[in-house]
């Protein structure tokens, strides 16, 4: 099939903020339901996932709080509770539920959460790395060779078994590397959160934010790269 391109995000596409109830046209003050006619309102496309869950834009997040809010909003939006309502309300319930589920899935996972925040703050579409991170360059080239050799070998042979042992060792190294990257990320997370908590508007703070985001993006793409290599390795020796 042709003509298929990747979704460029329309989240940032400027849209008029919702201010009137779709049903009774009264001014909207309530969050998701109209104060006057109590009808459910479509969640605005501009609303970011953090705001939707009533959370500050931070990378450290209590999973318990997130889950409680997710269940609460599920009870508010789920189509099961709109069976007797109008078609419009059923459509809104379906859309809101789908959005809520995506938001929860994104925020629940630390990596996806960081990627999402990066996207919100720096407008970066995920950076796909095609060359190995500099400090792993040699190792990965060698690993690719070993993998090729192993794929071409007769699995029952002696040499295949030597290669397999080597690949197992490589796997352990790479997995350790992945854990190191994740630890680095966590550190970066707390630096980001601390900076946000201070809420300074100085030039210096702005530079610092930019630096953290850039570093975060690099580390995230290194992680994705290493993860893909590990997956490939695991699939090959399985």
């Amino acid at each position, binding site marked *: 099939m042709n003509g*298929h391109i990747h979704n460029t995000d329309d989240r940032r596409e400027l849209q008029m903020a919702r201010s009137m109830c779709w049903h009774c046209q009264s001014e909207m003050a309530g969050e998701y339901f109209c104060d006057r006619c109590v009808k459910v309102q479509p969640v605005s496309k501009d609303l970011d996932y953090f705001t939707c869950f009533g959370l500050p834009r931070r990378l450290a997040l209590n999973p318990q709080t997130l889950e409680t809010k997710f269940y609460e909003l599920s009870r508010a939006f*789920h189509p*099961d509770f709109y*069976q007797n309502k109008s078609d419009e309300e059923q459509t809104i319930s379906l859309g809101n*539920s789908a959005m809520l589920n995506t938001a929860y*899935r994104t925020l629940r996972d630390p990596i996806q959460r960081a990627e999402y925040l990066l996207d919100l703050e720096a407008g970066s579409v995920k950076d796909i790395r095609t060359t190995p991170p500099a400090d792993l360059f040699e190792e990965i080239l060698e690993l690719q060779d070993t993998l090729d050799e192993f794929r071409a070998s007769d699995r029952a042979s002696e040499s295949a078994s030597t290669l397999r042992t080597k690949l197992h060792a490589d796997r352990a190294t790479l997995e350790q590397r992945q854990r190191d990257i994740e630890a680095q990320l966590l550190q970066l997370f707390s630096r980001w959160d601390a900076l946000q908590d201070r809420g300074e508007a100085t030039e210096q703070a702005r530079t610092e934010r930019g630096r953290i985001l850039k570093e975060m993006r690099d580390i995230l793409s290194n992680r994705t790269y290493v993860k893909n290599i590990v997956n490939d390795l695991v699939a090959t020796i399985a």
Partner: protein
Amino acid sequence: MSRIVGIDLGTTNSLVAYMDHGTPRVIAARHERAMVPSVVALTDNGLIVGDSAKEHLTRTPERTVYSVKRFMGKSLADVQGELAYFPYTLTEKGGVIRIKLGEKSYSPPQISAMILKELKLRAEAFLGESITKAVITVPAYFNDSQRQATKDAGMIAGLEVLRIINEPTAASLAYGLQEKTQGTIAVYDLGGGTFDISILKLKNGIFEVLATNGDTHLGGDDFDQLIADLFLTEIRTQYGLDLSTHPDHMQAVRLEAERAKIRLSDELKTTAGLDLPDGKGRFTRELTRDQLDGLCTALVERTLGPCRLAVKDSGLAPGDIDEVVLVGGSTRMPLVRQRVQALFGKQPHCELNPDEVVALGAAVQADILSGGTTDMLLLDVTPLSLGIETMGGVMSSLIRRNTTIPASAKEMFTTYVDGQTGVDIHILQGERELAKDNRSLARFRLKVPPLPAGVPRIEVTFLIDANGILNVMAKDMRTGETQSIEVKPSYGLSDQEVERMIEDSFKFAADDVSARKLIEARLDAGALITTTEKSLADGGHLVATGNVEAIRTALSALATAKDGTDPRAIRARMADIEQAAKGLTVAMLDDSLKQGLQGKKVSDVT
């Protein structure tokens, strides 16, 4: 809001249940069990369903359809391997299997609709109101086409299917209602034709499915087939008989294999026996539980892989599961219980009847939808990844498996050639890398205004609703116009076909009603004969010999009428018996009262 019933449309048995003041209950017809065998037979009196149809399996095997659920949402090529086992004739039209019954051919949804109608009638007779809305269960691992086929079946049966829910999650609702369980549970559901495993987290009335897996082609039917194959081989070597040319005996072997299997759940050994054709006498064989276990081990092992995957996809280890719940008739097999217990390291639960628990759960979900139950909410997932075919025949995943539903994904499309007016989209479901290794769900052509290449921007939204069924919408981002999409299902009925089948089903309804009247009359007659004979045996001495004679004459008259085809004649003879046996009934009542009430007459006490 009118009442919504819950229906378990099973491979071997189907049930209907309703919510009775906060308690789900299954509905049984008079003198019958609640389980309706999922069997449809074409008789001289028309189509019949359930226990009476099951009788025809060995009599008119080529006109008696069983296990139709295995064909839902399938093409003939999908079931090629097992065609030889089915005595009825299967063909295909438009990617959908057709089953030949007499002169006509029916799609699997039409056959399923006959079973659904039977359940609908039962519910109507029992509840005394017309039933038009239902929640129907499907195996959790059913793909989009199989779900859609089930929904079509409901429509053809005259039911608005308000929700399709997954069988293991339905079971968890029934359990949750009863036990108020909290924590992580695994529901292992092995029925007649399908296997499902679902891992759920239960917390404050929320039933959140974490992951699901399964095999929609693995169940008790497959165990029966292994045993039957063993018998058939032995019959061939011992008697030189090839039963495959005797469809009626093939069915008898299958049924005897199933009975032996069921007995071996309680006993350590059993004897299976079968009458052979061509005056070859009788085949008997002792089968031990060990032998059965040996035959079935590989199949039972096949359920464990999906269990491990589901646990892993939940981000858990088997030891993290707090409770294990067994659902489906095949979980009565000791071998299955042992393996499940060993995997999770826990004694599994089976307090609720494994045959009924799914229907009960469907009734609970029906009550949630009608606003009766408000504290419970089921958050289910889609079992298979959904994607589209991209260049090079690769599947690009849009919604991953085990994503909570409703779920949506948006994708932007454009053109590569100036003036191109359409983009073909092929929707797939499955976990494999290449498009051709996954299930094709549908194809459609996106309409694009003729513009220079790359200028059009059409946003397509893929939305999996709460039924696990896909909806597709498209929007031109330049004009803001939405576009309705005609999706052609790869293995399903078109909307027009479903429409026509609904009309057909009304046409046949008239025939069905008379056939049904006859069946009911026969069943009622059978029950009356049994109770009257018992009364004669117990209390015949209490009345005059002349009276006993009169009752006997009336009984034999009823027996004759019952073999006929006129329901009115049967009812008339039944009335005769009731008249003739009046004296006997009163005498027996008096007699039993005499024991307890020291000689008071019936007339005194009432």
